[in-house]
């Protein structure tokens, strides 16, 4: 058997190429990118595939300027190009001229329509946004158990305020049923009611990956939540309807954690301020009361009935006792200024002195307080104030 014609590989490949290029003018294909490689030459190589088949593709460097986004594995795209044969490799390939994300047009139409509808209901109004608690200790999180959100929050807490309690409601964040799961997660936290703020979100991804956060059930659950919601979806450039409905939008999951979790150190400093200010105020109040006491004690010995003085003294005793029992120990340790004040208070308390058995002796009728036995002479009348009652007497002997 003699062959009619023997082709060289180059000849045959050339003919195949001519057939292929002749049969398939420039066309559009839809598929998912995989095995994407950016060569040092600037050309990009990848495979477009669907469930059953795949096709090698090339995007020459000079054409990348037409592509407004970065190609990534897993991205669904529609590509325009020319089917050809790469002769050196002995395989057909698709020369890509233009490329766009599949379904992006439909998705953005759906997004705009839903946004318009929900906005008309007032769901995105700033007026209905709730304030985010400043210092939440219990934070509810609706996100994937393995994604960036929970990882970032755990890391940031470890650094900022370890003692905080994070409660994760794991949710499917992309694909079929994700929107309903996220919405249910938000409702679960509301049913449970024991967190102060919710973070709802996921890490970055394609528009489709983030799509659940643009769906009505999520938006409605966010709006209906009694617990304030912080939305943290994707990267800064990704704005979802969930972001618009939330009480606060964080540009990224890390940012959400930093917005919600305060630094323990900072809070500690704040507590110290409260401590110092209340102590300062207490000292000033005590000083004012002491001044009042001083003026009162100058007063009472001469003008007030003893009963009134005793009442006042009793009250001071009470206060002093209560004060010294719990707070004073602590204060005295930190500030001996207060200790001195307490001493003053005690010294000023006339009843305490009288109770211990001392008495006050006055010359009558002037009622001047006697400090020296030689201030009186035999036969002078004097008054002695005791803890209970008063005695009038006559001087008999002077030493």
């Amino acid at each position, binding site marked *: 058997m003699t062959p009619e014609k023997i082709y060289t590989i180059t000849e045959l490949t050339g003919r195949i190429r001519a057939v292929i290029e002749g049969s398939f003018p420039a066309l559009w294909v839809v598929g998912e990118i995989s095995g994407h490689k950016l060569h040092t030459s600037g050309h990009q190589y990848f495979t477009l595939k669907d469930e059953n088949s795949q096709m090698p593709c090339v995007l020459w460097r000079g054409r990348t300027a037409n592509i407004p986004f970065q190609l990534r594995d897993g991205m669904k795209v529609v590509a325009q190009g020319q089917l050809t044969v790469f002769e050196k490799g002995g395989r057909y390939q698709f020369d890509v001229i233009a490329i766009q994300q599949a379904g992006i047009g439909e998705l953005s139409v759906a997004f705009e329509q839903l946004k318009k509808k929900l906005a008309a209901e007032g769901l995105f109004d700033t007026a209905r946004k709730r304030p985010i608690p400043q210092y*939440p200790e219990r934070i509810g999180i609706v996100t994937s158990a393995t994604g960036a959100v929970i990882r970032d929050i755990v890391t940031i807490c*470890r650094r900022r305020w370890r003692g905080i309690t994070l*409660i994760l409601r794991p949710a499917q964040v992309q694909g079929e049923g994700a929107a309903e799961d996220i919405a249910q997660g938000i409702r679960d936290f509301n049913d449970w009611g024991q967190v102060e703020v919710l973070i709802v979100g996921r890490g970055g991804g394609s528009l489709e990956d983030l799509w659940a956060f643009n769906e009505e059930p999520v938006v409605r659950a966010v709006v209906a939540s009694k617990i304030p919601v912080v939305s943290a979806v994707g990267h800064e450039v990704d704005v979802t309807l969930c972001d618009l409905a939330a009480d606060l939008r964080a540009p990224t999951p890390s940012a959400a954690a930093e917005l919600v979790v305060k630094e323990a150190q900072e*809070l500690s400093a*704040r507590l110290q301020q*409260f401590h110092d200010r*209340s*102590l300062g105020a207490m000292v000033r*109040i005590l000083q004012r*009361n002491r001044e009042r006491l001083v003026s009162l004690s100058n007063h009472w010995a001469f003008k007030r009935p003893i009963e009134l003085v005793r009442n006042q003294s009793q009250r001071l005793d009470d206060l002093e006792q209560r004060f010294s029992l719990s707070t004073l120990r602590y204060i005295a340790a930190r500030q001996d200024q207060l200790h001195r004040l307490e001493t003053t208070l005690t010294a000023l308390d006339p009843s305490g002195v009288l109770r211990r058995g001392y008495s006050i002796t006055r010359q009558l009728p002037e009622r001047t307080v006697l400090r020296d036995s030689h201030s009186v002479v035999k036969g002078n009348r004097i008054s002695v104030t005791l803890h209970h009652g008063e005695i009038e007497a006559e001087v008999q002997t002077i030493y």
Partner: protein
Amino acid sequence: MEQPKTFENAITRLESIVEIMEKGEIPLEEALELYREGQVLLKSCQAKLNEAEQKLKILVKDSTGQITLKDSPEPGN
């Protein structure tokens, strides 16, 4: 006065305690009472800040709709 349960409530209460005390237009007894309340709040807040254990729990809803918490293995590693 109901005892504030959260850190947030405690801080809000501390703010108003300090403000009232700084105005100083209150009787001594009342000031002491506020001071003591403030000390209690400060102590409980500080204890919360010093808490060193990191707590991550998982919210679980069973088939009857009952919501419970279970411990989580540390994530992100």
